[in-house]
């Protein structure tokens, strides 16, 4: 049976070529650390990654999701920082890596961890209740400027992305809002539908169900270009039909990274393994479906591109938060 053995050797050779002999691989289950509560955007992303890697056999070891959302996610950051050189856990990070150290003086800097890859950018949209008459951003901001008591703007948490964006809008329009910090984006969404707030700046995924049900109106997206997805979502409208805020005369741009970080001081071949893993992950249909369903902007950014971006993004947050007075002073 020379043929079969030849085939065997050939394939074995091919395998060897594909994976260098001493490449590092996880030797025990890998922990996906979520810096937010159950059911939130980070948790959903973790479950997607878990499912995609498991279904496509991208890794031999299983993955476990561990929720460390205590103290608005600070728990996860401290946990990752203390896990130096541990190659079996990574965190799904978002802008909290810049905001928490500034607003709550959490002893953390993203340079304490090892950046691996950015897998997506999350968008922000200005949403209003469909029962309210505002057909354009201008109508809404004009009404907000004239309103006493001020319009209520709902969002997730205090002195973080939604709050920063609200301050940014106030700065550009001159309108003042009473910002209401809720525990989650889902809560901010139902509070808008219930008429308890006038608007929110939720991510597309946080408001999509209410949008599909025709309960809220998507006024504009805070990005340089429109969202690319053209499949109809809400009635005749697709994500692509939502204008950018700049088109609507409100020049505010803000997006949020969804990036993977390993603990600090891991060996270089560990980082290589995970970069490779995520490279395979973004090819899976699970990942692509997830991006479209949540209206996320798919990217794959790693290495120097990523660190350059993180530096620039950190500067932007520092500037916005200082202007808004969100930076904690020593007391």
């Amino acid at each position, binding site marked *: 049976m020379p043929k079969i053995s030849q085939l065997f050797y050939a394939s074995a050779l091919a395998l060897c070529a594909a994976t260098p002999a001493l490449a590092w691989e996880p030797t025990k289950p890998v922990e996906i650390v979520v810096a937010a509560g159950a059911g939130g955007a980070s948790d959903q992303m973790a479950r997607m990654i878990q499912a995609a890697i*498991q279904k496509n056999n991208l890794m031999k070891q299983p993955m476990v999701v561990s929720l460390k959302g205590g*103290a608005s996610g*600070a728990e996860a950051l401290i946990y990752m920082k203390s896990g130096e050189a541990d190659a079996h856990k990574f965190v799904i990070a978002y802008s909290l890596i810049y905001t928490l150290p500034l607003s709550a003086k959490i002893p953390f800097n993203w340079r304490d961890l090892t950046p691996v890859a950015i897998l997506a950018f999350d968008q922000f949209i200005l949403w209003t209740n469909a029962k309210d008459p505002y057909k354009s951003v201008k109508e809404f901001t004009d009404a907000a400027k004239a309103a006493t008591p001020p319009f209520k703007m709902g969002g997730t948490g205090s002195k973080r992305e939604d709050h920063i964006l609200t301050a940014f809008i106030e700065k550009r329009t001159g309108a003042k809002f009473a910002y209401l910090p809720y525990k989650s984006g889902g809560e901010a969404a139902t509070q808008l539908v219930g008429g308890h707030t006038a608007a929110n700046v939720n991510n597309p995924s946080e408001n999509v169900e209410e949008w599909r049900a025709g309960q809220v109106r998507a006024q504009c997206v805070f990005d340089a270009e429109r969202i690319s997805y053209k499949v109809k979502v809400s009635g005749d409208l697709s994500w692509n039909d939502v204008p950018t805020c700049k088109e609507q005369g409100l020049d505010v741009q803000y997006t949020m990274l969804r990036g993977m970080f390993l603990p600090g001081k891991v060996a270089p071949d560990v980082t290589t393994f995970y970069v490779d893993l995520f490279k395979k992950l973004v090819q899976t249909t699970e990942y692509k479906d997830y991006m479209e369903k949540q209206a996320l902007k798919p990217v794959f950014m790693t290495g120097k591109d990523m660190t350059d971006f993180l530096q620039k993004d950190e500067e932007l947050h520092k500037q916005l938060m200082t202007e808004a007075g969100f930076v904690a002073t020593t007391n």
Partner: protein
Amino acid sequence: MEALGLLMLGFKALMTWKILALMLVGLVLGIFVGVLPGLGGPNGVAILLPLTFSMDPTSAIVMLSCLYWGALFGGAITSILFNIPGEAWSVATTFDGYPMAQQGRAAEALTAAFTSSFIGSLIAVMMITFLAPRIADFALKFGPPEFFAVYLLTFCSFVGLGKEARQKIVISMALGLLLAGVGMDTVSGQLRLTFGFTELLRGVNFLVAVIGLFGISEILVTMEERLALQGHPASLSFKVVWQVWKTLPRYWVTLLRSSAIGCWLGITPGGAIAASFMGYNLAKRFDKNPESFGTGRIEGVFAPETAAHAAGTSALLPMLALGIPGSGTAAILLGGLMVWGLNPGPLLFVEHKEFVWGTIASMYLGNVIGLIIVMCTVPFFAAVLRVPFSAVAPMIVVSCAIGAYAIQNAMFDVWLMLGFGVLGYVFKKLDYPLAPLTLALVLGSRAEDAFRLSMIGAGGDLRVFWSNWLVGSIATLALVLLFWPVIGMAIERATSTFSSKTA
């Protein structure tokens, strides 16, 4: 009767051997995790979730929600036998359930708990079946002032209807509120009371506190008082079951009242935990002999268990219809829904009829099968109390420690639990009530957030709590309950002077 037709559709989706088998697996695992304190429903569901990724959504939700029912049933077992509540809503069950077990009436208490949980869930499921679409609208009416009014109502019912000295209730509650303040403050985005310790960032976990306050402190007290005790004689026969069932119709008012409270608080997003306490307090309030509560009254088991399960069941409704989880377990189920490709929200009921009605039908079936299974275990669990205390106690301490650790995978929580054990011991020695502390710990930060959001929205105007009929009536009811002893006295005096005048 469109609902009935849809329900039949749901039942049809369930009637396969595969789904029935999954149901059984879920229930048995659920009872198992429910019995281990701290492990509980949320952890069980989280552990099983990855197994469901390759299942179809209906099978997956049936298995996981049956695990949830199982855990709800199982939670009552440790509350009654060892005074260790496994979930927030089992706390009130310990008040009379544990004294009953100590008197050798464990089988009776367990039967009462299981039966009333069954009745509570059944009434809640029936409500879901017929009112589902309209309830979503009701839940949307709740803004920050309404939420605060509900929490206020719970706190006030404790102070106004408690049987202990009022000062002691208030002191215990204040201590709970203080502990609830530890960690990140959502409204200001600042850390509070952490004193620079990273372990305190998470705040004080409610279950860790409860396991210590009730479980460990009970062991300390027992060690001091009755170390020689050789277990309780517990009847092993099924006769007890029939005896309890025979007396059921007598308590129909309690059962109905608690179901109504449970359904109402369950559909109020986040209100489920308060239900068991309110059910218990109101049963005590309306009883002819309120002093005897806490000494082993069977109503003291019926009332909180019915309310807790009605609430626990109806809490799934805001999750499905609004995407807002009413409990920890519901939050993890929510994550599961997304993985299975379903989006909880207003359109779920329209677009995934088979899934929604399959879930509702599984609530009926799961409860019936669950009841049968747990009833068979009553003699077994009641017999656990025959084991000498000196053999059981170390096992309880170990399982408490495992439970406290497993909640957040933190060793610090084990020390914290032991600290709470000592605190609970001191409270018992000084005759301070533990329940207000636990209630304040679990609802304190929510009440605070709701109050501050109301104030931000209203520009600091307290009249916002009387700005519409819904919030106004809840807030007024809260104040009435708070001043109930004074009002009760005034009414008594008024009627006595009135009757003396007419006489």
